[in-house]
């Protein structure tokens, strides 16, 4: 179980996270959404230890982890997929999968993992994780390295960012599979309706605060702007729905 207690994060006089309290139970699929600048990505990075909060506590399974480094958190069972996948010179897709797996994996196993994110493995295994790969390819490799860890808490920071529509259709399928196959809690930062649609719980953030938490049935209409839809008025005064 992940718990955040009174997390604050201020930069350049802007309160990016403003007294965040949150408890997430195990084995849930959670989507954090909200307008740009509402603090979603910063919150994800604070959980992973990539950013350090000014005050407040991050607690994983009852253990205070605020002072733990990124790798210590990773080894406690946390995993993080970057919004902009990191590129390397000389490190191949296979190298990255081997590091991620933390055990020996053969080429066949690595191929199976890539196939799950929709990549034709033979073509990709020995390619360097660099600019020669497209945004969609890098994103899938990023997701593969994270999904492979089968962590008890996996965070995806805007997985849909920077990929084309075709790749996005496949991405939804990947997340549906992750949901079925990976035990543990998944947190996805997303704006996409189709990702929101597969959530157990949606967290709506605004101006550095958690505005609402609820099921998709409760929150989707508000998030998608279908609730309190502005009414159109006909000339003459009659109201149209």
């Amino acid at each position: 179980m992940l718990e955040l207690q009174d997390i604050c994060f201020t930069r350049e006089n802007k309160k990016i996270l403003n007294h965040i309290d949150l408890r997430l139970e195990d084995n849930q699929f959670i989507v954090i959404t909200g307008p740009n600048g509402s603090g979603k990505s910063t919150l994800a990075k604070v959980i992973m230890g990539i950013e350090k909060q000014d005050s407040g506590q991050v607690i994983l399974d009852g253990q205070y982890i605020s002072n733990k480094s990124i790798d210590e958190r990773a080894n406690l069972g946390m995993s993080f997929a970057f919004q902009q996948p990191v590129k390397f010179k000389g490190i191949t897709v296979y190298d990255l999968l081997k590091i991620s797996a933390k055990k020996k994996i053969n080429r066949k196993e690595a191929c199976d993992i890539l196939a799950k994110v929709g990549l034709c493995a033979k073509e990709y295994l020995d390619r360097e994780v660099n600019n020669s790969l497209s945004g969609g390819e890098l994103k899938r490799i990023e997701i593969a390295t994270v999904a492979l860890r089968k962590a008890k808490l996996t965070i995806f920071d805007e997985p849909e960012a920077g990929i084309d529509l075709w790749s996005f259709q496949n991405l939804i399928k990947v997340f549906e599979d992750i949901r079925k196959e990976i035990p543990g809690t998944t947190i996805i930062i997303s704006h996409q309706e189709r990702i929101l649609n597969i959530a157990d719980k949606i967290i709506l953030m605004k101006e550095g605060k958690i505005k609402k938490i609820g099921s998709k049935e409760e929150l989707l209409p508000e998030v998608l702007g279908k609730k309190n839809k502005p009414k159109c008025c006909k000339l003459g005064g009659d109201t149209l729905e």
Partner: protein
Amino acid sequence: MSNLEQVDEKLLSEVSDSLENTFKGAYNIRKNGKGIERKITENINIVTKKDVSGIDIYIKENTNWEFVHIPVIITQSGLKDVVYNDFYVGKNAKVIIIAGCGIHNECSSDSEHNGVHRFFLEEGAYVKYYEKHYGEGDGTGKRILNPVTEVHLKDGATMEMDSVQIKGVDSTERITRGVLEDNTNFVVTEKIMTHGEQFAKTNFEVELNGENASTHVTSRSVATQNSVQEFKSNVIGNAKCFGHVECDAILKDSGKVIAIPKIIANSVEANLIHEAAIGKIAGEQLIKLMTLGLTEKEAEEQVINGFLK
């Protein structure tokens, strides 16, 4: 290889590690300035030079992917060894040439090896050339290597050159020259890592004289501690040709890298590119690897190993 002692075998395995000391094809082993072992084959002849120290290697035309090994080992402190090796590669011959120099210096005098290698490729020949430099030993004497490589490519010839210097060489000044005729390709990949007070200087000069001549030079280097590296390149396009030079360097500690690019287009059809990037390891690379469970130090090693792989 009965003339080899234990330290020789270690040096040999460092400069030709994938071969486990079992040389396939022709070879010539040089130790402390003298040839000590040689084998020739039906297609590859090795002849000792008469005027200067060194060998001529003749590869018959149409040879189909045979090996030539020419390792050099130096265990005698204070020795300054200069060797001239010329390769004559016949028409349409395909060959893999593995050179390398290992210096073991336990004493206070400097040990130096200057290898001048010239390659003359006839029409359609294809050479893959691997060169590895390595130094070891606890002596205060410096281990110095100054290789010169000259490549002459005739119509349709290709040369791929791969040079690595990762450990133990105190000072190196490397010169690589290429003269390319029509439809030729010269690909150079160089990897250097320097430590301590080491100094490494690299100088590339490639003349693209023929139609459709092309070259691709990639230099990847890591300068750590107080070491200094200098990378100079000069690609001259005299015809419809293509040249691409990439210089990438990672800095650590107080390491210093100087990159001096030069591209000269003497033809309106010449297409020349130079890219150079120097900097420390990107923080985001370390963070990504740390999210996969590596410590910061392990992440740094992984980035450098990948970069120099």
